[in-house]
């Protein structure tokens, strides 16, 4: 018996029933005489759905990729079978430019790679250059740099927290987080005059000492920030949607995490207690009392918990740093490396020569190389510098933590749903400026 198939379309304003009282918008099968037949799909008519894969392109211009990351996903239904990340859209050749700049001139470039953690990068670069020059910085400078690093860590984690909340569907914590981030920007602005591109260090010291009353503002921040953090914690940590969208996603076992080179909160969430501040200390971090939070499952939720706890520990470090901040000079007393005061340059012959030599030629480190890594908010941020005795490095290498962390994303997303890719990608805390450099 020949059958014909037709779909009855009805107006949306109707109740969804056709004049005969049958549900509309369903394919109706009628025989020649127009009688409706029961809908039974003959066996084999159902199309073969398995094995038909679909390619989805996310980015490079997509808010959820946190920059210009492009992910090509092969989907089986809604499950990711394969993920191919493509990077390089923001490649600026920082490392090449650094070979044509003096050491102090490179510091502004370090602002611009991991732009959420500019002060931390400045400190890391200055530490690397100082090892290459063989400089010991002053005590006040060491403590000021610890304050800088920890403020920078809180700042970066707040951006991560806010944007991840937006990715997963919560808007309010984003506003709270950015309000507090603004408070840190205010502190940095009062100190060096810039908010994002701080260039806060120099080789051998800092750009400036902190202004009068700055430490009181910092104390105010240290007192008020935990309240906001607690509010975010209360809204998010036990939230059913948040927990449901983060637990069990992107799991990395401790062995895998180490082998894939993950560092920072990514590695610690997997249960590996590795923190450069504890294991390879710098800036006298071994004398501060703080804990290194670690996760147990290595999933997105644990990474969130680790970062939340890291912010609390940063506050602890800040409290101790404020308490011990010594008086004294910020810059070292060696005018072959650090500029003498500008007022002396016009009255003192020797100071003028130092100014001229430093600005025109730049300080020269001895032949050698140094790799100094610090615990940036994203992980192990290392600067590898090679000097051939001239005032410009032969090679300036950035070891980007997000780059290596991101390289594990195919491993983390394969087998998960498309919507989970967004959460997993957010949990890596990538900054494309650092990945592409």
């Amino acid at each position, binding site marked *: 018996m020949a059958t014909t198939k037709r779909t009855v379309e009805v107006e949306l304003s109707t109740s969804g029933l056709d004049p005969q009282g049958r549900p509309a918008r369903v394919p109706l099968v009628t025989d020649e005489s127009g009688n409706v037949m029961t809908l039974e799909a003959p066996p084999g008519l159902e199309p073969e759905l398995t094995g038909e894969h679909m390619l989805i392109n996310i980015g490079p211009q997509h808010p959820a990729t946190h920059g210009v990351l492009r992910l090509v996903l092969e989907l089986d239904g809604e499950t990711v079978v394969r993920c191919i990340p493509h*990077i390089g859209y923001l490649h600026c050749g920082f490392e090449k430019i650094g070979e044509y700049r003096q050491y102090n001139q490179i510091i502004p470039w370090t602002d611009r790679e991991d732009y959420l953690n500019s002060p931390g990068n400045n400190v890391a670069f200055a530490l690397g250059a100082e090892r290459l020059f063989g400089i010991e910085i002053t005590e006040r400078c060491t403590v000021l740099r610890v304050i800088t690093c920890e403020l920078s860590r809180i700042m970066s984690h707040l951006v991560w927290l806010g944007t991840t909340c937006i990715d997963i569907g919560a808007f309010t914590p984003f506003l709270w987080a950015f309000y507090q981030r603004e408070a840190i920007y205010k502190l940095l602005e009062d100190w060096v005059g810039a908010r994002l591109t701080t260039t806060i260090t120099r080789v051998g010291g800092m750009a400036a000492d902190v202004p009068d009353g700055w430490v009181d503002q910092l104390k105010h921040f240290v007192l008020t920030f935990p309240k906001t953090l607690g509010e975010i914690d209360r809204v998010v940590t036990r939230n059913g949607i948040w927990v449901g969208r983060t637990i069990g996603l992107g799991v990395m076992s401790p062995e895998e995490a180490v082998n894939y*080179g993950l560092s920072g909160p990514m590695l610690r969430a997997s249960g590996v207690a590795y923190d450069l501040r504890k*294991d*390879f200390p710098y800036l006298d971090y*071994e004398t501060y009392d703080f804990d290194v939070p670690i996760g147990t499952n290595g999933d997105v939720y644990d990474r969130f918990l680790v970062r939340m706890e890291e912010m609390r520990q940063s506050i602890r470090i800040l409290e101790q740093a404020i308490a011990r901040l010594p008086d004294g000079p910020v810059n070292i007393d060696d005018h072959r490396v650090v500029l003498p005061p500008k007022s002396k340059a016009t009255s003192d012959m020797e100071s003028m020569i130092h100014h001229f030599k430093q600005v025109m030629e730049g300080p020269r480190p001895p032949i050698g190389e140094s790799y100094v890594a610090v615990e940036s908010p994203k992980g192990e941020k290392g600067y590898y510098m090679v000097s051939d005795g001239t005032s410009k490095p032969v090679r300036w290498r950035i070891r980007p933590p997000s780059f290596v962390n991101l390289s594990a994303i195919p491993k983390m997303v394969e087998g998960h749903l498309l919507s989970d890719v967004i959460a997993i990608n957010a949990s890596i805390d990538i900054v494309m400026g650092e990945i592409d450099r």
Partner: protein
Amino acid sequence: MTAPVPFSPVLAGAASPNAPAPATPKSVPHRGGAVNPSVDALVQKFGTAVRRVDVVWGETTVVVDVPRIADVVQWLHDDPGQRYDFLADVTAVEFRDVEQPIEVVWHIRSLPYRRFLRLKVLLEKGAALAVPSVWSIHKSADWLERECFDMFGIKFEGHPDLRRILMWEQYREGFPLRKDFPLRGRFSRSEQLRQALAANPEARYSMEELNIAQAYEDLPDEMRRRLSRGEKTGE
């Protein structure tokens, strides 16, 4: 590709209790500081393959023969007395002096023993720039080696997918971090713009790469095994 690497886990608190408490390095001498204790064992094991040991600013550098580098990394990774399980960085250095060989540099860390070691090989100019890949030992080498290839043109033999990563596939100007590459690029700005506009963005990645069925034969063994089992990673 070698067999899966036996891997002893590094878990919380696995750091050796005998290791000295870490401290911020102070008054580091330019040359002749304390040598990394792994070097003695390394020299004993590999003999003349270890060409030179330097200590510069407290960091130990071991220069090894090019063909043995993967063996050295493998041994340092596996040996229970060393356990260098964290590959921090792979990069290269070209000097301004054209006579000086190009150096390929590995920065590795032993998390349990809290040690840091720099391995180097020297590649003479004029010869083929190729070194063995350590991808089968450290998965983190994947992108780091690709970047090094992209920027310096050094071939990492044994890498499963060695193609450009930061520059695009059709980039024909050479290797940007080489010293003979001018800062502004090889071509004029107008030529660079013309090439960028003429490029077909769809051609950047072949459909073969995107189609898993056709690319199946080219996939790394481990991934092929996982896919054939229908296993879902990350669970």
